[in-house]
């Protein structure tokens, strides 16, 4: 039985979604998930284990390994599993690079999982030239967006060996956890609130989102609530900002919530706002679409490329555009027909964002060998 192995630092709900989808779509393959740590260094999510694939954790969470040891353990895991195809995230980590090179020398097929884009941050030609050499072990890739594809193709990977739909989710899991039908059904239009699901860090550009919300509030007699889900270093500064704008009765900070609680909140959401100044993808966007929720997203979000079309299932704005965000919030909050139309427009995109799309990409790469 051919083995396909996936590696991430830690498995959260979306990683399990994707490995499960691959396992279901390819029942004659053995699917193995390898995580480095038992808990994420970035997210406070509860570690997940899938139903249809085998997951293994390399470290116990207390020990500290250098790059060589991590690479060695990763290679050993692939050998023990008998993996012929290995999909690796975190290509910029030296440990992953060493492992990728060793695996390639062992004639394994090594693939890159990537959602970086050229426009994520200022780039330097010489660093990118080094990166082009850095990716030589990879024979293919699954990317999160068109811009990721363009970036990887720029670095030298053949376009024919790049597949889409890296960042996908189980639509069925989201809907089941929400406990209500997706919009425009379910919770009544008038009872819905605005939602932000985001780490509270600078690149998420949350002060602009809050300023836009304040502008919206100033223009309406009965403003809707804004619920902010997430934690991070800017928590106190954001709370202070909300207080200064006299918005405390309209804005609630929900802290970090597990996936099920976020799905439930999306079940009563009018619009998801994601105005990031840097966003490799933006998982909350596809989760919102799964619940029929229109989105207002900045053009920095990688998810925009495949899953958002302005005027169809949401609106795309510029990350410095406070006035524009407020304008679209006002329109969607007051025009039920418009909201229902955009909500209905999410359906096709939600289907495309399902983890089965990822499984098909894995299938195309591994079966074309």
């Amino acid at each position, binding site marked *: 039985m051919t083995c396909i192995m996936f590696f991430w630092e830690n498995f959260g709900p979306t990683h399990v979604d994707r490995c499960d989808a691959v396992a279901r779509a390819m029942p004659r393959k053995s699917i193995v998930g390898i995580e480095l740590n038992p808990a994420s260094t970035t997210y406070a999510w509860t570690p997940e284990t899938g139903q249809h694939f085998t997951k293994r954790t390399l470290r116990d969470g207390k020990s500290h390994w250098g790059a060589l040891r991590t690479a060695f353990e990763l290679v050993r895991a692939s050998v023990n599993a008998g993996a012929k195809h290995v999909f690796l995230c975190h290509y910029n980590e030296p440990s992953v690079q060493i492992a990728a090179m060793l695996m390639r020398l062992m004639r394994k097929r090594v693939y890159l999982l990537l959602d970086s884009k050229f426009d994520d941050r200022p780039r330097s030609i010489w660093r990118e030239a080094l990166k082009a050499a850095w990716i030589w072990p990879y024979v293919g890739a699954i990317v999160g967006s068109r811009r990721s594809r363009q970036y990887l193709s*720029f670095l030298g990977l053949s376009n024919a060996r790049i597949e889409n739909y890296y960042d996908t989710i189980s639509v069925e899991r989201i809907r089941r956890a929400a406990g209500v039908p997706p919009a425009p059904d379910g919770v009544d239009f008038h009872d819905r609130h605005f939602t932000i699901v985001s780490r509270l860090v600078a690149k998420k550009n949350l002060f602009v989102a809050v300023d836009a919300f304040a502008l919206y509030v100033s223009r309406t007699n009965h403003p809707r609530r804004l619920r902010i889900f997430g934690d991070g270093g800017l928590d106190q500064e954001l709370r202070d900002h909300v207080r200064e704008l006299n918005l405390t009765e309209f804005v609630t900070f929900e802290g970090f919530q597990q996936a099920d609680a976020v799905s439930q909140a999306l079940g009563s959401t009018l619009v998801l706002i994601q105005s990031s100044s840097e966003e490799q993808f933006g998982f909350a966007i596809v989760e919102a679409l799964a619940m029929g929720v229109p989105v207002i997203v900045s053009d920095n979000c990688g998810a925009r490329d495949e899953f958002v079309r302005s*005027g169809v299932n949401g609106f795309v704005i510029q990350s410095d555009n406070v006035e524009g965000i407020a304008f679209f919030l006002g329109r969607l909050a007051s025009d039920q027909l418009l909201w229902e139309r955009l909500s209905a427009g999410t359906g096709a995109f939600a289907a495309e964002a399902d983890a089965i799309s990822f499984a098909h990409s894995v299938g195309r790469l591994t079966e074309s060998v």
Partner: protein
Amino acid sequence: MPTRLRKVVFLWENFGPMHVDRLSALARAVADQWEIVGVQWTGKSTTYDWVAPDAKNFSLVTLFPDAAPASIGFRRKLWRTLSFCLKSKADAFFFSHYNDPVVIITSAILALTNKRVFGLLLSKFDDYDRKIRWEVFKSLILLPYAGFLTNRGRSEEYIRFLRGNKVPIAYGHNTLSVGEIRSLAGAAPAPGGAPHAERHFTAITRLVPKKNLAVLLDAYALYRQAVAAPRPLHICGSGELEAELRAKIAALNLGDLVVLRGFLQRPEIAHELAQSLALVLPSIEEQFGNVIIEAQAMGVPTIISHNCGALETLVRSGVNGFVVEPDNPAGLAFFMQWLHEDEDLWERMALGCAQFLPRADTPAFVDGVMKLL
């Protein structure tokens, strides 16, 4: 005793109205310090059918006054360009067409002779599918430049990618005379002038594949189905796709509503915009989109694709127009319908055009050039 004016040379392949606008404004602003010289290879553009106004306040030299653009050999073009620049005794040079072999060699030689050479560059990373090897080469051919006049956002980021963070950069590359457009239009900018109900949609663009006009027609067909009394769509421009577009217009049964007006000179463009409800530009590839400046000069909201380089400088969705994806005819039709039906919204967007327009008026070009000089 009068002091010698310093001299600066600007090279474009051919001078159109906007190039004349820029250098006229610069010459007026720095007349007591700098002598401004424009140089063009030919009197006719390889891309546009424009007729440029006479140079005002600056001298314009045509290196090949009688030659057709495509007929000039490399060696002849290099010799005449290089000898002109060396003989000009200019203190500084601004070159467009950084990837033209003649410009590559000329800029390198001038830099080696301690002349200050600046690049006029508006490319963005996302214009094409790029390859690292060619970008490394490009970073080398840009080494002679002492700085760049460009635009905000992606063009600036692209230059910094190629040349690093320390290279001097100024904004104001894509500018034109807002006053001139208004004067030629002979009408007040929107929401003044023609009433909302009498305005039509306008596209001002070359009829070439990258302008994505098939999607525009698909969007217009959707818009026509969605409203009771659709407004006409005027497409102004010429190009290789004209026959194909006429066939598509016929196939979609839009012949009575879509008007192909051909290439229009600047005064006619200004008149056209004075009657426009919105300018539509859904390009797949668009380094800037100068027509967006002309539209905003006349208070006309724009519906543009995010590929347009003018986005960062001029357009904010929901403020003075809307931004759509180039593969999104349904969204384009949706925003056309909004502006068609909602006069208050249209007025608000028309007023919003003034917000960023100074960034694209010729004084911004003067500021940018002087910052570099």
